[in-house]
């Protein structure tokens, strides 16, 4: 069910401002690809073009092609709503629906797609909470609001919510940046397990994290503030961290940046 992503010549704008310029890459199915780079280099923007969330921002528009296996996400007649049902997303700050219980948060996406019997829903909720390593912590309070959980638990709840609709691809936008080290470790372990089912793309500011969780790493950079971000290089994580081909990558990962 995991799918391959092929991006060709992708450029994204905020109004007249070009945020990322002419990016091409492919993402292997059932692998973890990490995006690293300095703030403002457009890695989050690029991530958001992969499930058509970029155009939700006022003035946001995109040129270029994103193929999910053979389907062009920006093709004519493609409904962004159905794209987002196949390409799930986890955000920087944990954002469970505060007005819903833990159970309802996980079931939220399913209820959008159709009607399920209670027993079916129970099974799916349990399976995904287990998949997010959260079941044992919340099984006795499924009907309590999700906002009562700790930050790390909330983020795992958000992951369970995203996986419950069985997407092909899971996008993660700095999923650990608001979490403490122990919760971060829990999420990283989880990412390792999830890649057996999903294609995962993760944006991170933490280079150790990229090295720990990803199979391939893409380095983004921008020439100067206000300039569009570009993809500098992409390759196997081991290779990028031990033997980058571009000088800027080496400077960035060794901390000599700027």
């Amino acid at each position, binding site marked *: 069910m995991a799918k391959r992503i092929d991006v060709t010549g992708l450029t994204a704008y905020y109004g007249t401002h070009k945020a990322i310029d002419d990016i091409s890459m492919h993402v292997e199915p059932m692998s973890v690809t990490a995006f690293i780079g300095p703030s403002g280099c457009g890695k989050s923007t690029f991530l958001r073009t992969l499930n058509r969330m970029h155009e939700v921002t006022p003035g946001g528009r995109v040129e270029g092609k994103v193929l999910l296996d053979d389907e062009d996400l920006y093709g004519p007649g493609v409904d962004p709503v159905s794209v987002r*049902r196949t390409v799930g997303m986890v955000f920087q*700050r944990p*954002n469970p*629906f*505060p007005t819903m219980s833990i159970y309802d948060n996980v079931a*939220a996406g399913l209820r959008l797609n159709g009607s399920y019997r209670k027993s079916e829903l129970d099974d799916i909720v349990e399976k995904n909470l287990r998949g997010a390593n959260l079941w044992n912590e919340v099984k006795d309070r499924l009907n309590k609001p999700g906002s009562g959980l700790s930050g790390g638990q909330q983020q795992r709840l958000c992951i369970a919510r995203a996986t419950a609709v069985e997407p092909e691809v899971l996008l993660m936008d700095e999923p650990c940046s608001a979490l403490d080290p122990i919760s971060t470790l829990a999420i990283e372990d989880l990412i390792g397990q999830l890649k057996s089912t999903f294609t995962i793309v993760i944006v991170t500011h933490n280079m150790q994290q990229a090295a720990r969780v990803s199979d391939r790493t893409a380095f983004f950079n921008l020439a100067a503030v206000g300039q569009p971000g570009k993809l500098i290089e992409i390759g196997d994580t081991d290779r990028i961290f031990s033997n980058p081909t571009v000088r800027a990558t080496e400077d960035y990962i060794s901390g000599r940046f700027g």
Partner: protein
Amino acid sequence: MGTPATAPRKNTVRLGDRVFSGLSKGSGIALLVIMAAIAVFLTIRAAIAIAHNEGNFLTTFQWDANASPPVFGIAVLLFGTVVSSVIAMTLAVPVAIGIALFISHYAPRRLAGIIGYVVDLLAAVPSIIYGLWGALFLVPHMTGLFDWLDRFFGWTGIFAYDGTPARSLMTVGILLAIMILPIITSVTREVFKQTPKAHEEAALALGATRWEVIRMTVLPFGRSGIISASMLGLGRALGETMAVATVLSPSFLINASLLESGGGTFAQNIASQFKEAGSMGRDALIASGLVLFVLTLLVNGAARLIIARRKEYSGSL
């Protein structure tokens, strides 16, 4: 020499702090005193009138407070006030939520600004203007709607209509709906705008359509705001005086049909009768005012109860 370094510093109270704390304490106390004074005044005067009343204060369909002995009852007023406010709320709340959602989530920014401005402008129109417009425009133009209601729903009795001028509780309710629309709209609009982007994006990323985003995040998040806004509107509808007095042709009858002329509300009755009332008449009107006061308190209390019951899900973290 001098003071040793370890001496405790004198705990000085600064003048600004003292003035401000005095000011806020004073304002708080003043509020309580004023509320108590209003309640005591209303209760004493009301008690005098009710003690002399020959009719039943709650059930008599009559208002002859100046006669001796005085005979008066609030049944018609309570019915008229509640019914016209219920009509107003039924019509205004859904429309106001619709306008607020359109402004906050659907309309292009320029258009949203213009509509928001017009809605705020509606709130600034004095109620006597609404009353004049209601009496001179709305009343003659209601007959068409009322005939239609009578043809299809007349059999219920509630919507029976005999073609007389439409100075009825229904017309009053519609006028009140228009009057409370702006306040409900602008309060709910502000609440909807404050829905956290993170929640809306979470819903979008799950593959929610725009309406589903609103249903999953905006409406639940704005729930207590919608209730508060409705209560503000209801408060205005319950107490509206001039507009009702101008449109309604008052009578001390309860019509089965909402479309028939007649009926009355607390505020309208006080405004219409106060000038001609003698001392007993005024006390009787004050007694009816006290009932309106209690009614408003009850409505507000109920609203608070609804909001408090789901506090942990309110979304305000």
